[in-house]
């Protein structure tokens, strides 16, 4: 395979990038200075070498534990559960939440062979034993996100002294939290309800 074709293939494996866009990106790099391309390559290398999943919450960070888990001003008695680490910046942007996070690494999807064991669920229940009083389930408002929320609720509900809440509707159904705007998320947070 030619060098060009191999880069096109790598680009087109990225989410949201079709073959045409992959070709455009490749030819853009070929027309740029060699230094531009090297900088991109170095940034990719660095992110792979330095960024790890936080052993505590699953957030992606160069620090371990991550800066959110280490921040003493954040309330450790409240945990917000999200599907992906990429959902965290959107919630942080809303300014409504000052607790800790827990990243599941996806959602339940029997059709894709993803059950509870494939997600970071066991570690979540380990954390709940340490004085957590509210579990906010912020999975996406999709079919899979709702089922995942329902699953977590059934497991967490019997825990004494724990309030389990779900972000209010208002988020676009079937949409990704990652792409919702700050105001929408802030409203969903303030309107969160007991499940």
């Amino acid at each position: 395979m030619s060098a060009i074709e191999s880069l096109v293939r790598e680009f087109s494996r990225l989410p949201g990038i079709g073959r045409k866009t992959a070709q455009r990106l490749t030819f853009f790099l070929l027309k740029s200075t060699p230094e531009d391309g090297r900088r991109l390559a170095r940034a990719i290398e660095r992110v792979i070498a330095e960024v790890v999943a936080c052993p505590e919450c699953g957030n992606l960070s160069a620090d371990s534990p991550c800066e959110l888990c280490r921040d003493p001003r954040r309330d450790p008695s409240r945990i917000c559960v999200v599907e992906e680490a990429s959902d965290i910046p959107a919630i942080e942007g809303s300014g409504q939440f000052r607790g800790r996070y827990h990243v599941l690494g996806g959602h339940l999807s029997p059709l894709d062979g993803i059950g509870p064991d494939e997600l970071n669920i066991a570690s979540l229940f380990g954390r709940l034993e340490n004085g957590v009083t509210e579990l906010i389930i912020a999975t996406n408002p999709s079919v899979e996100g709702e089922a995942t929320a329902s699953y977590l609720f059934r497991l967490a509900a019997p825990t004494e002294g724990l309030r389990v809440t779900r972000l209010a509707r208002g988020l676009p159904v079937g949409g990704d939290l990652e792409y919702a705007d700050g105001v929408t998320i802030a409203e969903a947070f303030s309107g969160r309800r007991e499940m």
Partner: protein
Amino acid sequence: MQTASSTSIQVAERAEPASLHRLLIRDFRNFRELRLDLPEAGAMIIGPNGSGKTNLLEAIYYLEVFRSFRGARDSDLIRFGEDVFRIEATIQRDGGTEELAAAFQKTGRRKKVEREGAEVDRITGAIGAFGAVVFDLDDAGLVSGSPGRRRRFLDILLSLVVPGYVADLQRYRAVLAQRNEALRAGRDEVVDAWTEGLIVPGAKLMAARDGWARRRADGFRGYHQQISGGAGASLEYETSLSAPQEDVGWEMRFRSGLEASRTRDFRRGFTTVGPHRDDLAIRAEVDSDGPERDLRSFGSGGQKRTAAIALRLTEADSLREANGRDPVYLLDDVFAELDRERAERVFRLLDEGRSGQVFFTAPKPADMPFRDGALARWRISDGALLDHA
């Protein structure tokens, strides 16, 4: 409520029906390329079996729901040896025109719908652009064939007339597929997580179907009596849920139904109750003065056909009320299997008080002039329009 519905009926009487004008069909079924100017009143399409006359109706209806009314897969609609089919039409509606096009490409299985030359984001948002009802040659099978056919009939019609129905249907199907997979894997807590998601959309589907059958039962009976010369008939939504002890809503019924069938669902590896297991019972008096019989197991071909035509006329009424105008009528050899007397009654029901554009196929020219004889007469053979008969 009362005021709103009477207003919509007044609108229905006033609004001009939508009609199709320019039509282009390319590499669809046996058509290589067909360009037609469609007359306002419509056309009678005459040709032997296999000439492509049903394919022409199928192409027109494709622009209404972006699926084959014969249940064919999109890839099977592409002309042999080709990769893409395309259908275009100019729709005249509400005093203006709109360009509508649909295409499907086998490579990459890509379906595309364009309005005014721009691709729409969501195909389901574009369905029902003009309103159309098909009187299918195979409609006796709609009455007596598998329940899936009647569910499909209800789903297509209700998608066109009940706001939010398509979204509920899509959501229900997505959750159902996941729940069935979880049942096969056999993990209790995971199955229960999906059960909750079935209830709200599923209950809405059942409520919409049941409500439709109740509201339309009288109209259906009326048409059946007119065509058959007096035989009574009924429509009833038949649910897979057991009858409730007291009057509770569909959500509650569905919830308890799912609870009651939980063990059975696990044993069989799929969800055994819900709108995907329901049916529409169609009954009619098949012997003079006898009781109404279920047409799924009783009745002659002609009697099933009569009930099917009454059902299609009922469908047309639903569309007329929802859209505020008469639909386009696609009649595929509608008089086949009917005796002369019944055929004439059907003809009058389709003609009197209805002004929607008509496309009417027949193996030979009919002597019953629709729309005051304003229908063009076309002869079709091997996917080509031969002449104006």
